[in-house]
């Protein structure tokens, strides 16, 4: 019977993968699968053998076990999403900081000053813009900030004769490379593997020093080199087009000394393990004061801070429902794992080298919210993998961060801001994917090599549970 339930659970996993790839609502998909994965494994305990139950104490509840069914349900549907509240707070403050950088003109000034260094040489300008874009997105995240920077960067690149598909691919790759060091994204993905309070040594600073810098550098360099390669092969264009300028493009320059502020929260966090939110507050208010945005009355200043917070939270709103459903799913995966173990336990990779090779080969499954990306069906794969074999948390983080950030965020048309970019530049999805998929593989393979050399053999102290 345990085998039959395992097969049914596996079928629901594939159904979820299909659902995600079709682009349906992720929050509802994960909520439905959480309910199914609650009913099948817990209800299944009535039919499975006593040996199976004895071998998997996680499934035991009722009299004499010290656990009740209601307690388990509360853990899945109450404690788990509550635990994610801490992550969500980081997301909200990060979104506020992103809005501050846009409102003060710091982000747009950084881009303009970078272009002024490169001039009319597209290769130099692309390289510099990619570097600065990556730095900006170590602290900014969400569709709002990407669009705000995109409406400045993309027309500049196109006006320099860079074909629009190359401009799009290069910009989106640079954004994703910055996200490798983004404290908000780090906190968000970390919560897929462990509770925010668990494993206190697994900080952004530790992660950055052991793998994060390498992951960022690999993606930035490969994206830039590929963009230059594509540019070298394309014919230079000069286009006559007309478009109204966006407010960001005509913003006044921010003072030069404020241009360091976007990376202040990340530096504070990595160097001193200083609180992420503290960093956002310090750098955010410094930006508002130094750029003269707090020169109104007390009431006006309060309204401005509040407005920016509101806009920032709206930027992240589409993600919140999904983020608060995922922890239920992560919690329920523990109860489904014994059944998965029966069916696929033998074939699941248990060596770190094999995991790296298999994941590198299957990188394409990170596209279209497939079974490799954490912001898609990958959460289910993680649930299966981490419960049928023992791997360290940093290793698993690296393994899943690559399809999530490099493939999904940087190269896939289902990412909200990539979809925006396609509509803005009128690049065909096919033309974008022709450029981005080679990047996903070239970058991803090198990053998996880095995972293998930098994050394997960490010892039991870094294992889950």
């Amino acid at each position, binding site marked *: 019977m345990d085998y039959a339930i395992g097969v049914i659970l596996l079928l629901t996993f594939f159904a979820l993968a299909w659902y995600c790839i079709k682009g349906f609502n992720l929050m509802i998909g994960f909520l439905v699968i959480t309910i199914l994965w609650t009913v099948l494994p817990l209800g299944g305990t009535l039919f499975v053998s006593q040996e199976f139950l004895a071998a998997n104490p996680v499934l035991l509840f009722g009299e004499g076990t010290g656990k009740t069914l209601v307690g388990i349900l509360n853990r899945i549907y109450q404690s788990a999403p509550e635990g994610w509240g801490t992550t969500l707070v980081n997301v909200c403050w990060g979104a506020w900081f992103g809005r501050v950088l846009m409102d003060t003109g710091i982000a747009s000034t950084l881009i303009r000053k970078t*272009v*002024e260094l490169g*001039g009319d*040489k597209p290769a130099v*300008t692309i390289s510099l813009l990619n570097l600065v874009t990556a730095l900006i997105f170590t602290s900014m995240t969400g569709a709002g900030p990407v669009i705000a920077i995109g409406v400045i960067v993309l027309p500049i690149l196109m*006006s*320099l004769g860079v074909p629009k598909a190359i401009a799009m691919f290069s910009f989106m790759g640079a954004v994703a490379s910055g996200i490798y060091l983004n404290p908000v994204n780090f906190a968000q993905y970390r919560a897929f593997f462990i509770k925010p309070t668990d494993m206190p040594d697994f900080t952004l600073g530790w992660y950055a020093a052991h793998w994060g810098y390498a992951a960022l550098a690999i993606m930035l360099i490969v994206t830039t080199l590929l963009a230059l390669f594509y540019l070298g092969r394309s014919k230079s264009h000069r286009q*006559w087009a007309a*478009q109204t300028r966006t407010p960001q493009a005509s913003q006044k320059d921010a003072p030069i000394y404020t241009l360091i502020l976007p990376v202040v929260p990340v530096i504070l966090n990595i160097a001193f393990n200083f609180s992420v939110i503290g960093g956002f507050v310090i750098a955010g208010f410094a930006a508002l004061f130094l750029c003269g945005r707090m020169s109104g009355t007390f009431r006006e200043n309060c309204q401005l801070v509040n407005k920016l917070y509101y806009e920032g939270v709206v930027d992240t709103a589409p993600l919140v429902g999904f983020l608060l459903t995922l922890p239920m799913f992560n919690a329920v995966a523990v109860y489904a794992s014994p059944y998965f173990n029966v069916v696929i336990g033998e074939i699941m990779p248990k060596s770190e080298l094999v995991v790296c090779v298999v994941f590198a080969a299957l990188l394409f499954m990170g596209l279209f919210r497939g079974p490799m990306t954490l912001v898609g069906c990958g959460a289910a794969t993680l649930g299966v993998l981490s419960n049928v074999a023992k791997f360290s948390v940093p290793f698993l983080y690296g393994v899943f961060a690559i399809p999530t950030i490099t493939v999904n965020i940087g190269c896939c048309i289902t990412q909200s801001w990539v979809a925006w970019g396609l509509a803005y530049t009128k690049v065909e999805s096919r033309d974008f994917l022709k450029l981005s998929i080679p990047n996903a593989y070239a970058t991803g393979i090198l990053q998996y090599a880095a995972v293998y050399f930098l994050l394997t053999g960490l010892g039991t102290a870094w294992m889950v549970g």
Partner: protein
Amino acid sequence: MNWEYIKQKLKPIADGLFGKQRITRYERPHYEIRKLDYMLGKLAMIPAIEWRHYAFSREPLNGKFSPSQRLEWMRKSIECGKIYAQRMIAEYESDDADIIAHRLGLEVFYPQYPEKTDRVLFADFIKPDRINIFMDAVNRAEKLLRKESVKKIPGDNIKPAKIILSHEIFHHIEEKYRHEIFTRTEKIRLWSLGPLHNDSGIYALGEIAAMSFAQELNHLTYFPYLMDVFLVYDYSPEEASGLYEEMMTLAGLEP
């Protein structure tokens, strides 16, 4: 209350439960919509030199320039476009853009290339000798020219495709004479560090001169930046009105 109304009201709920992910849409700023003949009439009055703020607002290096530099470059670029137009007319004994393009050995294509509202592409010059004129924009402009009130401003015999082609021919001329033409030889030093330095060309100069070239070749009484509003209008009167507002404001005039 009909079925369509109910469906529309239920759609957000259905989308939330079973629908596609809602992706972030790109929304342009909104502007007051104005009549085309009114806008063209106003824009046609702007002297060529006063278009410099609009022309340089699209220049990536604009932040490096002083007002006097912009003024000087505008004058020289207009002059450059005129001189090369006269040179082409004399050399090829015609002021017809098609004939000049043919004699210069240019390949001119007229694809349809439908574009939507927020970035309307009129034409494309691909080095060294290919020009694409996107007929969707041209056909829409010609449709507007059938209105009497609109026709009187660009001129009775105006052919949008010829103006666009003239502009693109200039970019080919820039390539051909790149070692001597002002729009290519003029450079600005962006930075220097000991013996290292980065001198850059200025994109806007070529655009201004191309407009001046098109004006001279087609004997226009107005500076052809006006075409931006004219060619966009049929796609989006609001976007065209936004461009008009920007052009007028940058020229120091009341929209």
